[in-house]
């Protein structure tokens, strides 16, 4: 029977490293997916995912409400990304624009034979367009569309009111639509 995150956290906090390993297995792909879509670079996303779990591990004692582990993890991931960009004095938007080769490389492996050329181009365009979104809209889009988080979870992670999360989502979708139309 699968153990809950709270149970695993409790055991991990008592020194059971295997339990933390299980939590990593459970969450690493989701956190990686979030970071990757945000930063736009696979290797950098892997590094940041590693940093996120290292930080989470070291600060397990500070997590008072274990039912909010996922939100806490996303907050750490977001913070790690922001710190990395601050250190390197650049914004994720730039990395998308500068990293067309990465765009080609990372999607190429995941096409199925059924994927049409038109579809591939559309995804390339979509990734470029998401990279051009304002950071606050991009984060909400990634969290909602690709991480499947609820609006109240997004508002908690980003520290914004629920209505703001929804309006950013709305604006983000409208901007994507507009940019896609402009570029096609």
């Amino acid at each position: 029977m699968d153990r809950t995150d709270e149970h695993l956290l409790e055991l991990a906090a008592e020194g059971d490293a295997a339990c933390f390993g299980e939590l990593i297995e459970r969450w690493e792909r989701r956190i990686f997916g979030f970071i990757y879509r945000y930063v736009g670079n696979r290797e950098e996303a892997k590094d940041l995912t590693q940093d996120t779990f290292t930080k989470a591990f070291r600060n397990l004692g500070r997590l008072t409400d274990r039912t909010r582990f996922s939100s806490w993890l996303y907050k750490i991931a977001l913070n790690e990304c922001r710190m990395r960009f601050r250190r390197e004095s650049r914004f994720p938007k730039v990395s998308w624009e500068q990293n067309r080769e990465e765009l080609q490389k990372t999607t190429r492996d995941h096409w199925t034979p059924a994927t049409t050329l038109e579809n591939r181009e559309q995804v390339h365009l979509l990734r470029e367009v998401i990279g051009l979104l304002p950071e606050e809209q991009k984060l909400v889009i990634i969290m909602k569309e690709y991480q499947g988080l609820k609006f109240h979870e997004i508002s908690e992670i980003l520290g914004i009111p629920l209505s703001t999360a929804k309006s950013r989502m709305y604006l983000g979708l409208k901007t994507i639509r507009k940019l896609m139309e402009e570029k096609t």
Partner: protein
Amino acid sequence: MSCEQCSERLMDVLYGEELNAKTCFQFFRHLDECGDCRAEYLELLKTREILADWKIEEDGSAVLHDREHFVKPGSNAGIGWFSVFHRIAAGILILLGAVSVLQMAGILPDRRVVVNERQLTEMVHDMILARQEQDWRIIGTALLEVKEELEARRRVEMQAAFEELSDLELRFVNALEENNRRVQTLLTGR
């Protein structure tokens, strides 16, 4: 339901959140009646479909390969030997920093030789002079050696010239005597 209320609930309907059946029914009834709201809803729905195309797949391997350092959280969470060395190095640096601060504050005696700018200039000046003096001494010695060598060579050359002149003089005297003897022979007829 008005267009404004429809707009407020748009995100909730689009993502199926926090809506009861009654509100949902009212929302879609409004869409049937309002072309603008329907167009906007369909547009957002279409955008969502486009967004759904972007999938990230891993090759089956774990994203994180380096999990060895996730051991025993709590007292020694994630601290290996390497980390212990880091801590020792950091401790030494902090200690050195504290000693420096205390020395600057005059609490600890400072063993360093304090030299002001003028003294430093004088020291550098003295060093340059000493170096110059040494250079001049080397140059002087070299010149003397050259001079002595030239004089010795000159003496040898002068001696050779003197010997050559002496030889010439001797030959001249001999030739002169020979000449006188022949002249006398001619005059006397012998």
